[in-house]
């Protein structure tokens, strides 16, 4: 094959003829070592929850015992959580009550204690494993640390060195969700063909963009449809729609016009398929279950500005549409990735007021989603193949342990991420919790404010999730996470702790 699939699609986006042609290509073409459904024959989805602005995970997960708690107190005068405020958790392998969660996270605490949630500690963008000396000498330090946009991109792309990386420029602007979709695409024999693996209602756009696979971006309220003058569309509407489709193919030899037309083609093709599949698939779910799910996601009184639960409700609707087989009116997708997110985590000021509210929104949305998944697991529509979900958080960075003068905290680096789902090996902390002692050696911090040098990389975190979805071969791994082999190799060569030497973490249950 002399033209890549991508060039093929690119050259033909002006008309929809490409869809029919693409569907007739063998699924394995160009993917000799393919991703595998091996783990699960039913539908699996991963849901990225992006906490935009930099979540202060120092106040999400707090050590409760002995010196660590005292060190935490020492750094935080206004923002500290007292022992009686912390929600005690009992992670496997640690002393009882060794850690506590922020008081807003009551439902997350329950899911954690019931084994459905885990924390991945001090994870962040990395190129190579770093000691403090490496950091001080500026060796392999991620580009533009502490900058929102760059660090959001680093998390979303799993590429902390976009300038110096030898990756081609078109892949540098993709995300690891989208690149995972590039490789999982062979597993999805959807109707219509080539339905996007990734659907985004919010979060960081780059995460969803693949090299060959483009995401379906949808408004947070779930709407994606072209207006017509009548319902159902009249002959005039069909004439107008067809003419517009043709007009998109006329691009004057101008590159940006082709870019625009490409986005338009994706939207026009899949908007209607999605709308129809959502309605049809949802009707296959037991009415009582549907009612319970709708109730779970109702907006709490006075929380009209909350958005996460609105987005996660749409994820439920779209994952059901994806999981119901095409023969029953669904899309028949085996693997999907979703992106949601919400902002205002940049708590330089008044964190004591704002952060609890943000975490309350997180707690509410995550709990509603997990409960909905628990209900769907029992729904007869899926038989033995109920959809499985793993929800995971990302954020620009964590924040300084040392509070600033305005009841706030500033930009930092490594932080704690949350994973939740029935396939998570929960009630556990993974990774190494940082040393919070700001009067000590500061070996684990860039400076005396408590900006943790990550001891796990975004790639290790991401690859664990991507392999749960079905990424299998070394080539696939290195395509989606190009810095991961070098990271692990360097950790081995220079004798970093065992965790740094692993490609994958243990927070997903084995299949």
């Amino acid at each position: 094959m002399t033209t890549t699939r991508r060039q093929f699609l690119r050259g033909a986006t002006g008309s929809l003829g490409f869809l029919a042609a693409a569907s007739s290509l063998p699924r394995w073409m160009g993917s000799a070592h393919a991703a595998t459904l091996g783990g699960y024959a039913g539908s699996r989805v991963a849901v990225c929850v992006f906490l935009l602005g930099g979540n202060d995970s120092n106040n999400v997960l707090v050590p409760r015992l002995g010196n660590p708690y005292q060190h935490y107190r020492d750094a935080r005068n206004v923002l500290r959580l007292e022992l009686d405020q912390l929600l005690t958790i009992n992670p496997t392998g640690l002393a009882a009550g060794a850690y506590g969660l922020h008081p807003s996270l009551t439902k997350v605490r329950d899911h954690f204690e019931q084994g459905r949630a885990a924390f991945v500690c001090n994870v962040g963008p990395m190129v190579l494993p770093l000691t403090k000396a490496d950091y001080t000498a500026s060796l392999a330090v991620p580009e533009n640390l502490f900058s929102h946009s760059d660090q959001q991109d680093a998390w979303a792309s799993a590429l902390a060195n976009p300038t110096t990386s030898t990756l081609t420029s078109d892949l540098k602007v993709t995300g690891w969700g989208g690149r995972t979709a590039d490789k999982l695409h062979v597993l999805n024999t959807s109707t219509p063909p080539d339905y996007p693996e990734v659907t985004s209602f919010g979060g960081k756009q780059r995460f969803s963009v693949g090299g060959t696979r483009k995401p379906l971006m949808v408004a947070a309220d779930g709407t994606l449809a072209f207006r017509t003058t009548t319902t159902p569309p009249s002959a005039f509407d069909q004439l107008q729609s067809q003419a517009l489709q043709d007009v998109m193919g006329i691009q004057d030899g101008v590159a940006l016009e082709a870019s625009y037309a490409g986005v338009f083609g994706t939207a026009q093709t899949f908007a209607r398929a999605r709308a129809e599949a959502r309605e049809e698939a949802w009707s296959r779910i037991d009415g009582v279950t549907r009612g319970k799910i709708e109730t779970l996601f109702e907006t709490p009184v006075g929380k009209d500005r909350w958005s996460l639960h609105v987005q996660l409700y749409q994820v439920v609707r779209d994952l059901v549409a994806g999981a119901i087989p095409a023969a029953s009116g669904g899309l028949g997708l085996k693997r999907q990735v979703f992106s949601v997110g919400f902002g205002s985590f940049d708590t330089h000021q008044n964190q004591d007021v704002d952060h609890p509210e943000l975490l309350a929104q997180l707690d509410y949305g995550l709990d509603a989603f997990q409960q909905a998944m628990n209900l769907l697991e029992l729904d007869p529509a899926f038989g033995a193949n109920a959809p499985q979900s793993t929800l995971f958080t990302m954020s620009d960075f964590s924040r300084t342990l040392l509070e600033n003068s305005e009841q706030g905290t500033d930009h930092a680096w490594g932080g704690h991420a949350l994973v939740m789902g029935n396939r998570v090996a929960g009630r556990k902390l993974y990774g190494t919790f940082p040393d919070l002692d700001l009067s000590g050696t500061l070996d684990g911090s860039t400076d005396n404010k408590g900006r943790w040098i990550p001891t796990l990389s975004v790639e290790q975190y991401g690859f664990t999730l991507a392999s749960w979805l079905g990424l299998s071969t070394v080539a696939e791994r290195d395509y989606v996470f190009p810095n991961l082999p070098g990271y692990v190799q360097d950790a081995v060569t220079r004798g970093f702790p065992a965790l740094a030497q692993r490609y994958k973490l243990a927070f997903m249950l084995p299949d």
Partner: protein
Amino acid sequence: MLRRTTLALAFCAVSCAEVEGPPEQSPPPAAALGETQQAVDSLETPGEANSIRFLEQSSFGPRLGRNVSPAPVGTVEHVMAVGIPQSLTEQFSLQPAAPFNGDVAAADLGSQFFLRAVSGEDQLRLRVAFALSQIFVVSQLDIPESPRTAYSDPKTALAAHLNLLSTHAFGNFRTLLEAVTKSSAMGRYLDMVNNRAFNGAGDRIDPNENYAREMLQLFTLGIPKLNMDGTVQIDPLTGKPRTAYTEEQVQAFASALSGWTWKAAACPAKGGAINVPDYTQPMMPCNANHDERSQQLLRGVSTTAGGTAAVHLQQALDNVFNDPNVPPFISKQLIQHLVTSNPTPAYVNRVALVFKSDANGDRGNLMSVVRAILEDAEARGAQPPLALRPGFGHLRSPALFVTNVVRWLDPTLDLTKDPGLRLSNWSRSMGQWVPRSPSVFSYYPPNAPAPDTDGLLGPEFAILDTATITARANFVHELLYTNPAAITVDYNLLPSDNAALVAWLGRYWLHGTMAPALEQRLLTALADPDAGVVLRKKKLALYLTSLSPSFQVQR
């Protein structure tokens, strides 16, 4: 207040409801225009296409004079009559009919913005201020309400911010930077207000770095060190880009800019704060909360040891203003907002040199910079230079898409029905909710790539996805087919004959660049029996043309 900003608007006297009735007969009004096309297309005597392009770049959309004599300011005919340089001179002196109004009772600021954009005379001032608002970002979404003020804090703050940018749009960059730095809206947005160098016990603490960092990264320097032509400087030893500033310099600027608070009768004690916001005045300096020590700024320059908050602010801003990164960093972004996403390095260089020193030897004269951008050979002519055409232009941002469509259609706006809010909500649906950018990185970042182009920039594409591109189509659909009461289009102003209609759209909306294939596809659609009556055909042609790639990318 809205009524005072109106210029060429008429009220719907009786009924704005439109009946899709029998075909109209009225002839196209501007048939004689082509005869005035100049043989020599120069700055002083620009042709019609060149003049339309100029108005696409320098206003919120070209308008037609429609035989009004003399042709009103801002119309294609006027630009052709007086030339580009004189058009610019006129625009530089125009002032807003009224400032943005932050009163609770006033219309939403987005509504005020769009009304001024579609009907105000001071087109270039607002266009440049809008570009500046996407560099010096303050978002109405992130100014909290305070129970201590008698007004709406977010609205008052943003009205003041937009007025500040409008006032300084053609002034000096250094003056603008200082006004922004001291402004209470920015002070709150990026935490410079009440940013103290001491706690209540009198011990030194590290001030908040937020404003210092974003001022360096987004308002003045950017992250990599730049050549004058906007290209990135690479360190030959490491092969990596040189950076424009260090972490230590961020902290130095944070210290140098510490000690400012809300305007009040007196400063608080050391470590204390003023807790009553005042968004009607700039912040004031309080030396008790200022880090008086000398700070190492850029290029080896230090602030004076023992200096006051006010003195250190001047030294810090002078230092950053004089950095060689500022001219290319700001010039390139202004070019991207006005003309093209991918200017050649030579174009950036020409404009940056004017930023560095204009004809009078002034640095940072934005009036000279804007003139240099719009009079440049890369921006002028009936079409972009031939060799640059494949990579030229920029996707119309949602706001510009809305205003360009509306100004071409020249509708009657019913000011009792808040047409500006309608326009603003359409822009919002496409991902640009004025003045409420989702973050300090504005609606879209200047370095965002255009999809599938292998390296071209396309900042506006950062907010173009399946959802917002659907919203683009739905905006046009709603405007044309639901006949919004606040915005009444007189379709009699368009030619009724199919061929004349398509020719008219090609000549004006696409300034003579309509490809034969597009022309043919439109004619085929209009000739289809399902196209319906003449009015329906006009709407069909408008829908297809406005959403065509040829129109969506401003060239």
